[in-house]
């Protein structure tokens, strides 16, 4: 029998995913898979900088919020088409990434992680206090990117191409020279410099698409739930979620964020049916379990050890 081509799992996955609204009619299930897709995009975007380049950003919510707010405010204040606002959000997020990155990438290790939180918090406090422009702490309604009927299916079909684009970029980074330079930075920044890699430049190059995709996910998410507010699209929780999804599935792998998003969304949904306030316990427990027992993520369970080490290499195994 002839072997199937190597891309068949990818093609099959996206074919099944795209067809889902045709055979799933339950609005609740569609909302669930929409969230899986959006958070997979978030995890993939984080993976560019956090997984491949090993830079623990805990400030990605800044870009998520910029996307959500740019779409909302450009529609509301200037009367733009919301889709134009989505693009504006991605551009603004990339510009913000340029500024935040050129400051924070001068720091390493815990200092870097802390400075990304600080940058995101500065943005949150500013948004929260510019009441006239942003509606302050109360938040406001976000515009709908699609019109009824069948909103769930339309949003889902809007999110799948976004996942496809993030997936394509991941695939490229995974096996390109750029990806190898990022991994070199992750393994040892000084050694990377010694072999001619410019860490400052490469990290910024990875952060720009990371921020843009995060913003796109943010505006899509806000439009779906038709709300933006500092407590929903600018909380530290979303930054942690981005990192958790990538780590849970498998950092620096193509499929990891998708797996991570499925596991995280389903786990927190299952627990939510039993208790009211559980998502934080679930996130916390999953983070602890991943760090201690499964630093390579869920995907490492499916790969042979040698294969896994060659492809990804768990972040914790290096630099002991």
């Amino acid at each position, binding site marked *: 029998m002839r072997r199937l081509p190597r891309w068949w799992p990818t093609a099959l996955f996206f074919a099944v995913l795209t067809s889902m609204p045709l055979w799933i009619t339950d609005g609740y299930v569609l909302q669930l898979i929409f969230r899986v897709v959006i958070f997979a995009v978030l995890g993939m975007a984080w993976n560019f900088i956090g997984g491949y380049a090993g830079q623990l950003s805990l400030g990605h919510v800044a870009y998520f919020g910029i996307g959500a707010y740019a779409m909302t405010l450009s529609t509301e204040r200037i009367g733009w088409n919301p889709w134009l606002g989505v693009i504006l959000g991605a551009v603004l997020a990339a510009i913000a990434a340029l500024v935040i990155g050129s400051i924070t990438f001068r720091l390493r290790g*815990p200092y870097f992680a802390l400075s990304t939180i600080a940058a995101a*918090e500065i943005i949150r*406090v500013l948004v929260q206090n510019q009441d006239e422009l942003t509606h302050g702490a109360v938040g406001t309604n976000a515009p709908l990117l699609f019109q009824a009927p069948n909103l769930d299916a339309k949003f889902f079909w809007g999110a799948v191409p976004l996942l496809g684009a993030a997936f394509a970029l991941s695939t490229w980074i995974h096996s390109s020279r750029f990806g190898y330079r990022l991994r070199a930075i992750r393994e040892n920044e000084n050694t990377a410099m010694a072999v001619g890699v410019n860490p400052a430049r490469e990290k910024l190059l990875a952060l720009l698409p990371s921020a843009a995709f995060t913003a796109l996910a943010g505006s899509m998410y806000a439009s779906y739930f038709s709300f933006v507010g500092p407590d929903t699209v600018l909380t530290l929780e979303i930054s942690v979620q981005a990192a958790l999804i990538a780590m849970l599935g498998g950092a620096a792998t193509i499929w990891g964020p998708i797996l991570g998003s499925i596991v995280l969304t389903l786990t927190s949904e299952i627990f939510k049916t039993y208790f009211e306030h559980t998502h934080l316990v679930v996130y*916390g*427990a999953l983070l602890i379990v991943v760090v201690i027992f499964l630093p390579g993520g869920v995907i490492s369970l499916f790969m042979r050890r040698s294969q896994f080490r060659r492809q990804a290499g768990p972040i914790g195994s290096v630099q*002991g």
Partner: protein
Amino acid sequence: MAFVQAFLNGLLVGGVYALIASGMALIFGVMRLVNFAHGAFLMLGTYLSYYGWVLLGLNPYFGFPLWGAVLFAFALGVYWLLVRRVMGANDFLQILLTEGISLALIGLAQLLFGADYRQINLPVANRITGFGSLHFSVGYILSFAVSLLLVIALTQFLGRTEMGRAIRAVAQNRTVAPLMGIRVERVSAITFGLGIACAGIAGALLLPIFWTNPTVGGPYTLKSFVIVVLGGMGSVQGAALGGLVLGVAEQFTAYTWADRYAEVVNFIIFLLVLLFRPQGLFGGKA
């Protein structure tokens, strides 16, 4: 006069910050661990002192040593169960682990205590005293005084006792310390316990002058980072001074600009210090 009042208010709040941040500085200095769960342990301290007062009628100003001891023991457990496993791993995993612990504790608190805001009404803490046109709440003065005494006790413990010497030795060199007969694991565990106890006691002392809910600790984790960076990473005295500085800086921002921008000022100070004076405001060479 309002200026002097803002300065003194800043000092009073800064005293409690000093205690919180000393705990974090101790943990960072000895274990090289950035404790993202610091604020969550502080939150546990506020609930211990809340239920101590509501159920047992135990005044937080008398109960704090007990709550500190409880959190010390709890922290030892967390250390042996979880933190121990990432000692020596890279900071990427350490940060994710402590963030995980933080989320789990906050989530558990929401399950156990509910998400409501809680407050206690302690008559002594609500009294106002003053001289001339300056006014202070007695609660702030008490919390400040107890915090500062504890920070001094901590530095004396580190400076004068055998255990303190061992802790400082591990902070200086983790590789050589065991060769001198120091049990690094045990020292790390005790350090973690002490650091967490500082956060927890600070929480217990904040309750009479503030309120609590499961997410009350978040801003304190971030503030402690700011302070520890200000004071030079890992220096307990530096952190104590940094706490006072941050308290005053916040009050001045609130007084001259706007209350709500005090937080932004924190983070701007933080970024500036990290970028231009990473050894801290009071440190020597990097």
